[in-house]
Every structure is written in structure tokens, then in C-alpha cells.
């Protein structure tokens, strides 16, 4: 499925830290203090213009909301504020959610919406050509209006060999990609400017998730001429976007300041006057600042502090939560005994006490029936696993499979989290499966996992956007055994066929969603290819007088265009 999309070189796994280019996903690790919302979020409000509901806060007139400084802390420094190069938590969020916009974006509920695009793209009958209308009247921070030329330039520039971008390969399905990536061709032949407010993008193969790829921050829209004029100062001293806040300054290693963009295209927004992002601050120090009232928001909550926060009446109210786009799973090796037997896999599925893991993590994750993350388009609240927790039945099933005396000598890879590992180990022991824990970094164990020597493994991974394609193409298809992270060599042709079929449809086509529901059913209930354990939440602390600073499931940092600070009386 590689031709279909993102080149997934960076799965996120328990404890191990593979995401060198984007440190943010660290927080998804089951071990760390994950982040956010256990319950399904309320129905999605209309995406942009309307202000999202403000639970608990008195609806204030827009003017009354304006003002205040939002102080926050980051653990690292920026690499650059150039959208394709911004890759650590702090600069990635600054580029992706504060200073720039992309053509499309996701709401806090995971709803896909047209941001700098005026509408969802029009897809040609053969599924190859996307026609994207561009919003009129959007102004860059210097006052110039955004035109299609800027869009084309932004999308092709990040592919140039001399421009550093963490996400080039996501665009490999666009016609002309290879010539631009290798150079010296500068123009991406797959992008055509129809008029000042329309572009047309031609793909090599149908790819439903292409609009979702346009929502990723490496495709942030920058002003063509201004960025060329800035030369080497672009991204550090000169930063001009269309986002809700304007760049003021970045003092390397110390702090960055942004101010309110009064001409933001979403009228009335944003409300906060100024953002102060302090850099290179240790998590423990961040907590101290926060508890001293010197911060409106901290994201790096030390795991050990979590129970204390949750049991503190005041602090627990200030805890912001949102489901992440990652999940943790327990997977089987399909070519290794005894997991080549469906009955054994069913027994294991019924043996795992998913709620026990959630309780152990103080309820900062949600146990899953299927395997899609909650913010995903294809997440099905009504989906039920046919193999709920039932150790007695699991034992009987194991006996039926001819393992009445139990199974010995297995290895269970658990990343670096021995605590959760021991919970699962004990669950397995209860039905007679004796498994030794394999602990350590994923790259040290992967060969043995693929070889079937470690036939049971716990993997965690975070998607790049809230769409099940990302998981499916990396985990579930036959091809993903070679190109993705299907290390248990699970292969069911029906899934590959379904993916091929639905990926030719539009992103939000109900038929496409239905196709992914079918895949989930095959994986979880028919083949028991793996067990979806849980969806960790993203967590952060937000001051009590700040409202609507929702956590983004993707970035783990807040949406500040909606946030407003209530003056302390």
C-alpha cells in the first residue's frame, strides 16, 4: 500500500522513541503521561467561523474576551519556524497551529474542514484530480492577500532538495514528485493554477487521504515572494503566515513571542493578545511555574505527578484531556506457533483485562473494542469485540485448541513498560500461558519479533492524521509486512481489496467509512489479528481562568484561536 500514501518510517511504540523528527509523539507512550478525553466528545460544531461551545464558561461578547497574555513552557528549543522544517513539539505546534494555516485542518473532535481552502476538494471521476478552491480575502501577516501562486509554491518548495522537510514522502503520489525531490526541477507538474483562487492537483493513483496530507504542517502555506526575499532569515527572523497569531520574535533557547493577528480570516478570533512560549524548561520546573501561577498552560506533566493532580480538587479541574490519534495494541505473529491457531488468538483476546490497564494508568486512556483511535473518522462507537474479557471462557477455548496443559516458553515484547507488561503477563498466566517479558527498545527487538522468536508483542503507534488509513496501510495490509509495521505477517487479501476500493473514493465518503468498518471487523472479530488495547489521552494543565484552549489530538498542544482569558477579579 506504499503507493497510496505516507511513508511510515516513524511508528510510535511503547517507551521507545523512534520519532526522531517529531518528538511530540512521545507523549502517546503508554508509559508517559499520555493525554486527554475519555468520553466521546460532543457533536462537532461547525468548524471554523462558529466559536466552539464553552462548557461552564459564561458566553461573553467577543470584545469582552479579548486581551491577556498566555504564558506557556516548552521542553526543547525551535529548529526553525519554516513549516516543513519545524519538527519538535514547540516549533511544530507554532508553525502548524499558531503562525500558519494549511489548506485543510482538523477540529478538536477530529472533524476535517476547509481552512485556507474555501471548500472540500472536488474529485474527478477517475479519482486522480483534486480541484481545490482557495478562500478569498485571506491576508498574510504583512497584509497581502493569499493567492493560488503562494499555495503552489508552498507545496512544491518543501520538496526541493535544498529545503529540509520531515514530510516529503507523504507527497510522493503527486505527479512530478520524483523530478522535484531529486532536483533540479523546481515546479511540481502535478499542481496547476487554474485561477488566482483555484488549484488543481493531479495524482499518480487514487488516494482518498490526499486532502488529509494537505492538512499536515509541512504543507503550511507561506507567502512566495516574501519568503524568497527573506533568504536565510526565513523561518528564524522573518516569519509571515496567515495564522491567528503574528510572529514577534524568537530568542534562541530562551523564548518566542507571538501577538494577536487582528486581520485573522476567522472574524473575531483570536482573543488572546500575546503568547509567550518559554523554551528549554525542564518538566519539573514547568510544573513549579504552573503551580506558582506563572503559566497558563503546561504540557509536560511528569508521570509521577499524575495521581497527585488527579486527586487534587483544584488541579484536577484544570487538567485538559483529549484522546490522541494513537493506540496501543497486542499483536500476534501469524507464522509462529501457537498463534497461527485462531482459537489461541481468541483465547488471548478474552484473557486480557483492558480495564485493568486503564485503571493502572489512572484512567488517562480509554480501553478499545476495535483498533481505531477515538478522533479518527472511522472510529465506531458502537463497535463491539466478539471476545470481551472472560478468563474462564478463554481457558476453555485454550483447552479446545489442544493446550489444556497451558503454553510455555513464549516471549512477550512490552517495550520499556514493565508495569503494563506484568499486567498482561499475569492475565496470560491466569489462562495457562507462561510468557517471559521481552523488555527494551523496539529497534533492538524488531528482528526477533519479525522472526517469530517473540511471537506476542505490544506495539503503540500514533497516526499522522485522524484517519484509519494510516493505521491500516501500516499494519493490516499484506504489503505492510514489508513496507510497514505488520511485523506479525498478518495477511488477508480481503483487506487489501477493500483498501484499494475505498481509497479511490473521497475522504469523507460514507462508503469509504463503511469499508474501514468492515476491515475493523475482519481484523478484530474474524481473524483476531491483534487486540486493540487502549487509546491514550493527551494531558495538559490549563489555568482555571482560561477557556476553550482545547488540546489538539494530533499536536497535543492547544488550539489558541478559540482560547480566551477571563480577567481575574
Amino acid at each position, binding site marked *: 500500500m506504499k503507493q497510496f500514501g505516507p511513508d511510515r518510517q516513524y511508528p510510535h511504540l511503547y517507551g521507545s522513541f523512534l520519532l526522531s523528527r517529531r518528538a511530540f509523539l512521545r507523549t502517546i507512550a503508554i508509559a508517559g503521561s499520555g493525554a486527554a478525553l475519555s468520553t466521546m466528545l460532543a457533536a462537532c460544531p461547525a468548524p471554523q467561523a462558529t466559536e466552539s461551545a464553552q462548557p461552564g464558561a459564561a458566553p461573553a461578547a467577543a470584545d469582552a474576551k479579548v486581551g491577556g497574555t498566555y504564558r506557556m513552557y516548552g521542553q526543547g528549543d525551535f529548529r526553525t519556524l519554516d513549516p516543513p522544517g519545524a519538527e519538535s513539539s514547540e516549533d511544530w505546534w507554532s508553525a502548524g497551529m499558531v503562525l500558519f494555516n494549511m489548506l485543510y485542518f482538523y477540529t478538536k473532535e477530529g472533524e476535517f474542514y476547509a481552512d485556507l481552502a474555501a471548500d472540500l476538494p472536488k474529485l474527478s471521476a477517475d479519482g486522480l484530480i483534486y480541484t481545490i478552491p482557495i478562500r478569498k480575502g485571506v491576508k498574510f501577516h504583512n497584509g497581502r492577500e493569499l493567492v493560488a501562486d503562494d499555495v503552489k509554491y508552498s507545496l512544491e518548495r518543501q520538496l526541493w532538495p535544498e529545503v529540509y522537510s520531515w514530510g516529503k514522502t507523504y507527497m510522493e503520489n503527486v505527479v512530478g514528485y520524483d523530478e522535484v525531490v531529486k532536483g533540479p526541477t523546481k515546479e511540481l507538474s502535478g499542481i496547476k493554477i487554474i485561477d488566482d483562487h483555484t488549484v488543481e492537483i493531479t495524482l499518480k493513483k487514487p488516494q482518498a487521504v490526499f486532502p488529509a496530507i494537505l492538512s499536515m504542517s509541512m504543507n503550511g502555506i507561506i507567502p512566495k515572494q516574501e519568503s524568497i526575499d527573506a533568504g536565510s532569515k526565513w523561518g528564524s527572523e522573518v516569519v509571515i503566515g496567515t495564522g491567528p497569531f503574528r510572529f514577534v520574535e524568537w530568542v534562541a533557547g530562551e523564548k518566542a513571542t507571538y501577538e494577536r493577528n487582528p486581520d485573522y480570516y476567522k472574524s473575531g478570533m483570536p482573543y488572546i493578545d500575546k503568547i509567550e512560549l518559554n523554551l528549554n524548561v525542564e518538566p519539573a520546573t514547568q510544573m513549579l511555574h504552573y503551580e506558582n501561577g506563572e503559566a497558563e498552560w503546561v504540557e509536560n506533566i511528569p508521570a*509521577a505527578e499524575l495521581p497527585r493532580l*488527579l486527586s487534587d480538587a483544584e488541579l484536577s479541574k484544570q487538567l485538559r484531556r483529549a484522546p490522541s490519534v494513537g493506540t496501543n495494541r497486542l499483536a500476534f505473529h501469524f507464522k509462529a506457533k501457537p498463534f497461527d491457531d485462531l482459537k489461541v488468538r481468541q483465547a488471548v483476546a478474552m484473557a486480557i483485562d483492558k480495564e485493568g490497564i486503564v*485503571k493502572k494508568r*489512572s*484512567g488517562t486512556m480509554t480501553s478499545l473494542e476495535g483498533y481505531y483511535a477515538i478522533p479518527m473518522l472511522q472510529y465506531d462507537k458502537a463497535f463491539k469485540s466478539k471476545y470481551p474479557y472472560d478468563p474462564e471462557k478463554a481457558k476453555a477455548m485454550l483447552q479446545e485448541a489442544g493446550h489444556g496443559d497451558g503454553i510455555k516458553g513464549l516471549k512477550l515484547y512490552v517495550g520499556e513498560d514493565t508495569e503494563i507488561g506484568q*499486567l498482561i503477563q*499475569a492475565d496470560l498466566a491466569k489462562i495457562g500461558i507462561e510468557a*517471559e517479558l521481552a523488555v527494551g527498545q523496539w529497534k533492538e527487538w524488531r528482528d526477533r519479533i519479525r522472526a517469530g522468536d517473540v511471537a506476542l508483542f505490544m506495539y503503540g503507534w500514533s497516526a499522522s492524521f485522524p484517519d484509519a488509513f494510516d493505521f491500516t496501510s501500516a499494519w493490516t495490509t499484506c504489503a505492510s509486512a514489508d513496507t510497514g509495521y505488520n511485523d506479525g505477517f498478518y495477511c488477508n487479501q480481503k483487506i487489501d481489496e477493500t483498501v484499494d476500493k475505498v481509497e479511490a473514493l473521497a475522504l469523507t465518503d460514507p462508503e469509504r467509512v463503511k469499508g474501514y468498518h468492515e476491515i475493523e471487523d475482519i481484523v478484530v472479530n474474524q481473524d483476531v489479528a491483534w487486540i486493540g488495547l487502549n487509546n491514550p489521552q493527551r494531558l495538559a494543565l490549563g489555568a482555571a481562568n482560561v477557556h476553550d484552549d482545547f488540546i489538539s489530538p494530533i499536536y497535543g498542544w492547544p488550539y489558541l484561536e478559540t482560547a480566551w482569558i477571563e480577567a481575574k477579579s
Partner: protein
Amino acid sequence: MTTLQGIDKFKTKVDQSTAPRATTWWQDVGQRFRHQKVALVAGVLFLLLFVLCLLAPQIAPFSPIEQFREDGLSALGEPLPPNAHFWLGTDGVGRDLLSRLLYGGRVSLGIGIMASGLSVLLALLIGGVAGFLGGKTDFFIMRFVDLVMSMPTFFLTLLLVVMLSPGVWVVITVISLFSWTYPARILRSQILAIKRLDFVQAAYCLGTPRWRIFVRHLLPHVLPLIIVYLALGIPNAIFAEASLSFLGLGVPPPAPSWGSMIQDGMSYYRAAPWVAFFPGLAIALAVISVNLLATGLREVMDPARRGR
């Protein structure tokens, strides 16, 4: 005849009831040891710990690996503090700490004693052979000892354990592999000294086989040293085991050992300090008591220290 008469005379003069009786070396050690009050108390304490751990299957209130997810964890999934049900509280996955402590002691003390024993055995073989044979053999063996002593042992231990995959016997072997050198040097020099004494030379002259000389005439004379270094080695081995377990290279989970229990408790050092405190206390008690016992034994047994 006068001499003989003189002796007889002397004999008659002695009051049998007050005469110092001939004491064996062991009796002498026993008498001296009785004055080592600290060592005596330490010995009793260590014995107590040892017996408690030995009887773990009989006296532990729960299984050391059973997870009480409902009543052994707080609503937020935290360990429970000491209470009437779990006397020392529970650990991160709701297991009874007291039971784990008792079972863990079997591992920690067992490995401590076994590893120390194995290292002294190695020391005796290598140091003994070097001292006994002397000459070039001695030279090469002792240079080898120097070589081993100059190695960064802890890192080599880590490396070996990782390569051989952790387990009780691997840990015992690897710990003893790097802790035999010091006693080996001591034993060698002692044997070097003893083998020149007249009674050993006499045995040579009588044609006694060398192995017999070693076993019957030399070994008894270094036995006190062996006992002292056996005791001195235990705390080091306990520490080494705890360090390895702390780094996740000891006995594999879920089996407890004191070192791995401290490791389990590290993430709760603020929220639930007892999880790491009790195994830490157990290690401290075991190590201090064996150390004091060993020091006392050395005072009364080590030929170099006796009579001071």
C-alpha cells in the same frame, strides 16, 4: 630420671580443677567470638532474615505474584499504603509487598550466598594453585588476577548478563566471575607462607602426594580465611544482584527480588515511598548484619588479626 621426676613433681603440684584445659582452635574462636557483642547481634539478625525468607512459602500471607487489581490498588491505580490487610502495603500492580519481600529475600540472599560461595571457591582454586605451585605458574596466574582486577567489572557484568540473558544462575555465575580476585590474592599469600613451614616440608619428605598435602595440611589452615571472605563477599554479592535487578537484568519478572522491587518502586518514590523503602530496608539490614558478622569473624579468625 631427674627430669622425669621433675615432671612428675610438677604434675602433682597442679590442681586439676583449675588447670587450663587444652582447647581446640574452634573452641578458642567460639570463646573469642562471644566477646564480639555487635557481631553476635548482627549474626542473630541475619539468621532471622535468612530463616524468615527460607520459610516464605509457609509464612507469606499471599502469593508474591498475585495482582489484587481491585482491592490492592487505589481508585487511581496507585499502590496502597501499609494496612491491616496488606501489612506493608502493595506495589504498583497491586501485589502484596510483604509476600514479595519474603520471596524476594530468597532470591537476593540466595544469590548473595551462592555467588559469594562460588567466588571463594574460585579464589581457593586459582589463588591456592598459584601459591601452592609457585614459580612460573604463580607468576602467570597472578598477572591474570591483576588483569581481572583492572577491569571495569560492573560494566562487564552488565554485558555478560545481557549476552547470556538474565536468570538466577547467570547472575550468580557472573557476579562470582568478577569477585574472586581479592580473596584469591589473600589465599595465595597465606598458602605461600604455610607451605614453607616444617610440617608441610615433612609431609613432602614422607612422599605424601601433593593433592593430599593441599587438602589435608594446607586447607585446614586457610579455612578461617575462607569463612571470613565468604561472609565478606555476601554483602557485595547482594549489592551486585540488587544493582543488576535494578537495571532490569536480574531475575525476570514477575519473580521478585529486593533489587527489582526497588526498581518497581522508583516511579512511586513520591506518591508511594513504601514500595521502594521496604526492600531497601531489607537490603540495608541484610548487608549491615552480614558485614558486622564478617568483621567480627575476622577479628577472631584471621591469623593476622588474632591477639590484637
